[in-house]
């Protein structure tokens, strides 16, 4: 008896798929032997392929998009037969790629997907080698015995979803949970019995977010007062149904909506049959099968700005026309180019050239490349379709579709107008002549004749002559331009410094050189500064204006007066120079300056000796000068009547009064202004600081009250202390007194007892007698 040969494989059934999925969930995507042990009719490798090429939820089973197809063809060209390599780049599985690739090539050849005598077609008895990429076959109602057995076994094995360790862990978890619950229950009972167990505080460096709940509002303590609740009336409760609480069920709602829709449709049928039919079709899903691809519009070729500029240009033409006298001889020189003739026809949106089907071309190219014979045969290269992509990049090249520009093309300037080339037309075959669909010619002055191309290439003799004339006139015009100068001055750079530097033994640091330069500059600046006038050097105030009226009006001058005038002139010059009113005077040299300084010192010494004698100190002289300056300064006032400064002693009384009154008035004006300003500031401050003042006053008040209270409290305390001392004294005294009282009573009792005893003895003796 020979063993029956049993080959695993074949179509996947629904049950098998389900078992496989469950098994992968349990064992993971690596233990295919274990998985396969659940499926009698499939091997481990088959299970794996089924999973990775069909069942894995990450597999895309949607229709192929155009982009994906382009990528597929391109990558198949770049990496022929390496499906596994580039499948992830497309986002499909390798087998999907292969299948779709074949389908595309079939389409390119225009043949049926799989013909009757195609070798790929399965014949009866053959096993589908790609069974793992087919959808599962539905389960029959009556399954085979062995299938049922397999199913039940798988169910049993897969139901056990956990291993030993996991089970143990689960048990432990359960135990811990039970313990926790028991502890909780115990604590609750203890608390109910009035025993508060302290909860063990968990030590943790972290913050315990469970311990504190932000904005927690605790329920009021004590029992809940039910009187505030809205009592549910029992009658209502009985009348209530589930529907009242949960609302209508979803099914019922849908039912209702469906009924309403039907009613509406009936009504619509009565009123408007076509619309109703359309709606009916929509409901049945009778929409166009083919999905539209994404609408890709090319970028506009004429921007808004350019259009605006065109409008402006047109406007200038109109303006020019308006200024012109039409009936004059120049009337024919300008024409109205404002309106575009027959714009209404030309402005129709032209049909964009249909993108050539790159996909198909690519596929055809690939087929052509595949079907080449041996290289040894020689001959021409395999003809390839243009635009079918290239080997230049990883991603397939895409052609940018452009809107044909018909509005702004220049007539007679070559074949720039592209219009609706048919699919198989090559660009070279595009006619260059403008037809009625292209930009209409706007030639109101009749410059260009029909089919005129004179401007481009001179053809006739007449044209050639005309061109020559133009050239000649241009040359004449240019001849009047001045000759270009070609004399250059060559300046040899000074390299003395360099030589000097090279002479030195050690080259200096750049920083040192910089420092020296700085020092030199500083010295120069200092020298310059020294040469300025003393007023500038000492930073004294300069007069706001230079008074030119210092010269005497007298014509005849003696020597002294003349010298005075000269000095005045010099002073004015210096002042002007300091205020940079005039150009810098000629700079005196250092020697001149020193000589001048010496002469001045000599002069000063002489004057000092003559005026003050030898005894005077610097300070006394300064005081004296100060006093005299003050005197003179007070003597000078502004005379309002003459609008100039003058000597007080020379002024009339009325002038003085007027001047001072004016000044007083001015000052009063200042005063009022300042006063207003100050008042305003005060008001502002009061607003700004009022709050502080109030607060301070309140605190001061409370401090005063506190002080009083403190005094009182001190007194009270003292009083209580004294009281305590007194009481401490009293307590033993009173105790003593009470004790003596008690002692006395006790003593008396003893006496009485003795007496009683005596009496009792006596009486009993008497009775015995």
């Amino acid at each position, binding site marked *: 008896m020979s063993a029956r040969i049993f080959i695993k494989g074949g179509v996947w059934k629904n049950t098998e798929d389900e078992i496989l999925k469950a098994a992968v969930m349990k064992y993971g995507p690596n233990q295919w032997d274990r998985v396969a042990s659940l499926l009698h009719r499939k091997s481990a490798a088959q299970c794996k392929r089924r999973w990775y090429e069909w069942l894995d939820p990450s597999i895309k089973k949607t229709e192929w998009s155009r982009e994906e197809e382009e990528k597929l063809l391109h990558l198949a060209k770049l990496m022929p037969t390496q499906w596994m390599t580039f499948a992830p780049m497309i986002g499909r599985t390798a087998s999907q790629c292969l299948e779709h690739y074949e389908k595309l090539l079939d389409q390119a050849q225009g043949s049926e997907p799989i013909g009757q005598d195609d070798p790929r077609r399965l014949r009866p008895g053959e096993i589908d080698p790609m069974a793992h990429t087919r959808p599962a076959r539905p389960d029959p109602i009556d399954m085979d015995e062995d299938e049922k057995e397999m199913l039940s076994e798988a169910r049993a094995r897969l139901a056990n979803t956990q291993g030993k360790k996991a089970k143990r862990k689960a048990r432990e978890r359960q135990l811990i949970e039970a313990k926790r619950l028991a502890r909780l229950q115990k604590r609750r009972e203890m608390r109910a019995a009035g025993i508060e167990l302290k909860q063990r505080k968990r030590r943790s460096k972290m913050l315990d977010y469970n311990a504190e709940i932000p904005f927690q509002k605790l329920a009021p303590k004590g029992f809940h007062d039910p009187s505030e609740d809205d009592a549910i009336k029992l009658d209502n409760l009985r009348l209530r149904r589930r529907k009242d609480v949960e609302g209508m069920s979803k099914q019922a709602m849908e039912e209702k909506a469906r009924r309403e829709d039907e009613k509406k449709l009936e009504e619509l049928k009565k009123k408007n049959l076509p619309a109703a039919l359309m709606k009916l079709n929509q409901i049945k899903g009778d929409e166009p099968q083919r999905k539209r691809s994404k609408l890709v519009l090319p970028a506009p070729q004429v921007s808004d700005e350019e259009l605006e500029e065109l409008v402006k240009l047109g406007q200038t033409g109109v303006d020019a026309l308006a200024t012109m006298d039409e009936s004059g001889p120049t009337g024919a020189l300008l024409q109205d180019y404002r309106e575009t003739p027959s714009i209404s026809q030309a402005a129709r949106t032209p049909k964009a050239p249909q993108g050539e089907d790159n996909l198909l071309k690519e596929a055809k190219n690939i087929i052509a490349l595949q079907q080449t014979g041996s290289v040894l045969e020689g001959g021409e290269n395999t003809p390839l379709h243009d635009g079918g992509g290239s080997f230049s990049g990883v991603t397939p090249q895409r052609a940018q579709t452009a809107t044909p520009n018909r509005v702004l093309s220049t007539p007679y300037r070559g074949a720039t107008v592209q219009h609706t080339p048919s699919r198989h037309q090559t660009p070279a075959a595009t006619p260059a002549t403008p037809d009625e669909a292209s930009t209409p010619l706007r030639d109101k002055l009749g410059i260009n004749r029909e089919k005129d191309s004179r401007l481009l290439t001179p053809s006739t003799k007449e044209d050639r002559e005309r061109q020559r004339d133009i050239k000649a006139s241009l040359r004449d015009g240019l001849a009047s331009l001045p000759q270009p100068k070609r004399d250059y001055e060559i300046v040899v750079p000074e390299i003395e410094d360099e030589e000097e530097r090279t002479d030195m033994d050690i080259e200096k640091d750049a920083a040192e050189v910089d420092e020296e330069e700085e020092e030199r500059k500083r010295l120069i600046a200092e020298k310059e500064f020294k040469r300025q006038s003393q007023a500038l050097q000492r930073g004294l105030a300069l007069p706001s204006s230079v008074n030119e009226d210092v010269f005497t009006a007298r014509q005849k001058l003696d020597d002294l007066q003349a010298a005075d005038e000269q000095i005045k002139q010099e002073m004015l010059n210096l002042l002007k120079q300091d205020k940079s009113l005039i150009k810098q005077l000629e700079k005196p040299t250092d020697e001149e300056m020193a000589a001048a300084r010496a002469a001045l010192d000599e002069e000063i010494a002489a004057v000092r000796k003559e005026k003050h004698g030898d005894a005077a100190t610097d300070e006394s002289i300064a005081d004296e000068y100060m006093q005299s300056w003050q005197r003179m300064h007070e003597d000078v006032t502004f005379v309002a009547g003459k609008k100039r400064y003058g000597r007080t002693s020379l002024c009339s009384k009325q002038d003085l009064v007027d001047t001072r009154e004016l000044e*007083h008035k001015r000052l009063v004006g200042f005063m009022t202004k300042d006063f207003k300003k100050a008042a305003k500031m005060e008001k502002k401050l009061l607003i700004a*600081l009022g709050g*502080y003042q109030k607060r301070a006053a309140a605190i001061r008040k409370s401090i005063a009250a506190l002080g009083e209270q403190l005094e009182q409290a001190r007194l009270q305390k003292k009083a209580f202390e004294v009281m305590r001392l007194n*009481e401490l004294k009293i*307590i033993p005294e*009173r105790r003593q007194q009470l004790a003596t009282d*008690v002692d006395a*009573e006790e003593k008396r009792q003893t006496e009485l007892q003795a007496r009683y005893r005596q009496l009792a003895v006596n009486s009993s003796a008497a009775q015995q007698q």
Partner: protein
Amino acid sequence: MALPYVDDIEASREQVNALLAEEMGSMGKPSQKQYLSHLPLPKAFQFERTSMVKHHLQEMEEGSYKSPEFDTYRYDLPAPSQALKNDPEAWKESVKNAYAQLEHQRNRIDNLELMTQFGGQKWTRYVEQLQALQNRLQAALDAINQDMEDINWQRQNEQQAAGQEFYQLEVRWGELVAANYQLETICRAIEQQQPQQEEAAKEE
């Protein structure tokens, strides 16, 4: 002497009040506000007796005192009087005065500007200081109150402990008194009976 935490105070209240009234009566009229007025003032307050201070104090008491208004005279720039309208010297004085007053005004504005710049901070500091003082006083007061409470607690404890003792002694005393009384009565009764018995015995 009473122990207020043990003894019944209400009973002795009137007596105490009477004592208090007597003590106050010895000082003069109890209703008089300044019942210490006949005593000489301490040396430290003697300065208040100058005439100006007296005057102000009197005003304060009467409520007619008003703090002087802000003196704005210094900001006035009076022109010379009508008689001196045409005197240049008077005008000169006036102008000089005006300059001085303007300087005052400038000073005032400077001060106000300083106040605007630093016033907020200054006031904040001042209020803080006041607050600190208040807090200190409050703390002192609280401490004293706490001391007082402690003392009273002590007193209460001591007195109540003593009171317990007193009570026991008193009870014991009462019992003894009652027992003695009984004993005495019985003894007396027996003593009265005895002669009769003796007589009866003799008769027998």
